[in-house]
C-alpha cells in the first residue's frame, strides 16, 4: 500500500472520529429536552432492551454452560474444582457479561436502530419533522441513544445472572461440584469492585454501541444500498470498538 493511501485512510478515520464526536455533543445537548418526553425513552428501552431479552438470555445460558465445562476441565487438573463458582462469576461479571452483551446488542438492537433511522431519512421523515419545526435529533435520535444507554447495563446484568445459572447447572448438577462450595467460594471471591467494573464496562459499551448505531442511521445515504451499508458499518464498528474499549478499560482497572 502506498503512502498516499495510508494518508487517505488516516484522514478518513480522523474525519469519521471528528464527525462522530461532534454528533455526540449535539446529541447530548438534545438529551436534556428529550427527557421531557419520558414516554419516548421508555419505549426505546423496551424496543432495544426488552426485545433483545430472549437472545441475551439464551446466549448467557450457553456461555455460562461452556464456561463451566471448560473451567471444570481445567480446575480438575489442580484438584480445585470447588473454585468453579468464583472463576465463573469473575469471568462472567467482568468480561463475558458486558462484552458478549455488547456484541449481541450491536447485532440485534444496533442494526435495528440504524436501519430504522436510515429508512426514516430515506423516506423524508426526518426532513418532514424538521419542516414541522420538530428537531429530529431530539425526537428520534436522543430517545434511542438514551434507551440504548439504559438498556445495555440491564441486559449485561441479566446475561451474567443467567450465565451463572448455566454455570451452576453444568458444574453442580451435571459434573457434581459441591453446591455449597460453588456458591460460598463465589461469594467470598467476588467483591463489589468486580461488579462495578462490569457495570462501568457495560455503560461505556452501551454509549459506544448506541452512538454508532444512531450516528450511522442518521447520516446514512438515503438509498436502499446506503442504509444497508450503514447497517453493516454499525455491526463492524460497534464490535471492533467494544473489544478495543474492553482492553483499554481492563488495563485501566488493573
Amino acid at each position, binding site marked *: 500500500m502506498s503512502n498516499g493511501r495510508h494518508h487517505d485512510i488516516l484522514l478518513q478515520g480522523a474525519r469519521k472520529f471528528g464527525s462522530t464526536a461532534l454528533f455526540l455533543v449535539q446529541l447530548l445537548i438534545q438529551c436534556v429536552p428529550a427527557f421531557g418526553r419520558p414516554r419516548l425513552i421508555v419505549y426505546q428501552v423496551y424496543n432495544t432492551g426488552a426485545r433483545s431479552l430472549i437472545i441475551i438470555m439464551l446466549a448467557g445460558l450457553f456461555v455460562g454452560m461452556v464456561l463451566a465445562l471448560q473451567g471444570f476441565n481445567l480446575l480438575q487438573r489442580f484438584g480445585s474444582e470447588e473454585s468453579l463458582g468464583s472463576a465463573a462469576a469473575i469471568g462472567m461479571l467482568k468480561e463475558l457479561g458486558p462484552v458478549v452483551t455488547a456484541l449481541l446488542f450491536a447485532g440485534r438492537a444496533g442494526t435495528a436502530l440504524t436501519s430504522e433511522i436510515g429508512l426514516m431519512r430515506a*423516506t423524508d*421523515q426526518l*426532513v418532514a419533522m424538521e419542516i*414541522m*419545526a420538530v428537531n429530529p435529533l431530539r425526537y428520534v435520535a436522543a430517545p434511542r441513544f438514551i434507551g440504548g444507554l439504559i438498556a445495555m447495563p440491564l441486559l449485561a446484568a441479566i446475561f451474567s445472572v443467567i450465565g451463572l445459572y448455566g454455570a451452576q447447572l453444568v458444574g453442580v448438577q451435571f459434573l457434581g461440584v459441591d453446591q455449597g462450595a460453588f456458591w460460598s467460594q463465589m461469594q467470598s471471591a467476588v467483591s463489589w469492585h468486580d461488579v462495578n467494573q462490569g457495570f462501568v464496562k457495560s455503560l461505556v459499551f452501551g454509549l459506544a454501541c448506541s452512538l454508532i448505531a444512531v450516528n450511522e442511521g442518521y447520516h446514512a445515504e438515503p438509498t436502499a444500498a446506503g442504509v444497508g451499508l450503514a447497517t453493516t458499518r454499525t455491526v463492524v464498528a460497534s464490535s471492533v470498538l467494544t473489544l478495543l474499549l474492553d482492553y483499554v478499560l481492563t488495563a485501566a482497572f488493573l
Partner: protein
Amino acid sequence: MTSSEAPNPASSGSPDDAVVAVRDVHYAVDNRPIFSGANLMARRGRITAIMGPSGTGKTTLLRLITAQIQPDQGEVTVFGQNFAKLQSDEIYAVRKRMGMLFQNGALLTDMSVFENVAFPVREHTDLPESLVRTLVLTKLEAVGLRGATDLMPAELSGGMARRVALARAIVMDPEVLIYDEPFVGLDPISLGFILRLIKQMNVALGITSIVVSHDVQELSSIADDSYLLSDGKVIASGTPKELLASGNPAVRQFMTGGAEGPVRFQYPAPDYTTQLLSVEER
C-alpha cells in the same frame, strides 16, 4: 411577460407583500452550479407555481426556502426574515408558520393516520385531548379520510398517503403551504381532488401556496403567478397565460412538451454511430 434579464416580480404588485423571496441566489454542489442568480417571490394569498424540466433544481429550491440548506450567495427571506441571519431556534419559529406536502407524503411510519396528523399539534401545543381529536378529525374530513384514522401509513395507497400528509401540513393552520410535486402518480380523481383542495385552501383560508411541479396543464389552471426554471435561472415568469403565449423557444418547448428545442432532452453522449460500432466501450 418579463424576460430572463428581469424575472422579478412575477406580475405587477409590490414586493412588500412577498411572503417568500429568493434574491440572486447562487448554489453549487461539488462545484456544479445548481442556481446561478435565481430570483423569485411568492406573494401573500396567491398560488405561485414553480415549473421546470426535471433536474433543474426545483427540489433544491424548496430546500432553500425551508432553510434546510443555505445559499452560497444571495438571500432567501421568509416573512421578511433572512434565514442566513437566524439562529436554529428562530428558524424553527419561522417553520412553525409553514407547511409542506412531500411528494411521497413522508408520513411517520410507526404512527397511525390519526397520530400522524396529531403529531405537530402534540409537539407544539398543550391542547386537551378532546380538542386535538376535533382538530385532527376536521382536517381529515377536509381531505376525505375521516374514516381512515386507525390505518397505518403502510396500509395507505400513494394518493391516500399524500392526502393524509396534506391534512398534517394544514393542521397547524400555516400561512404558507409548499407542495412538492403534488400531482405525480395520482389517478384522475385524486388529482382533481388535490387540485381543487389547493385552490380551496388558498381561497377560503388565504394560505399563500407554492406549488413545485412540471405538470403544466394542472398548474396553469390554478396558479396566479408562475416561474419557469432552467439552467439555474428563472427563464420566464408571469401568469400561466403569459407563459403559454411566450415567444421564447425554451419556454414554448416546455409549456407545449416538445422534445426538440433549446432544452436538451438527450443526455450528453458521444456520436451514436461511432458508439454503436466501437467494440471496447459500453
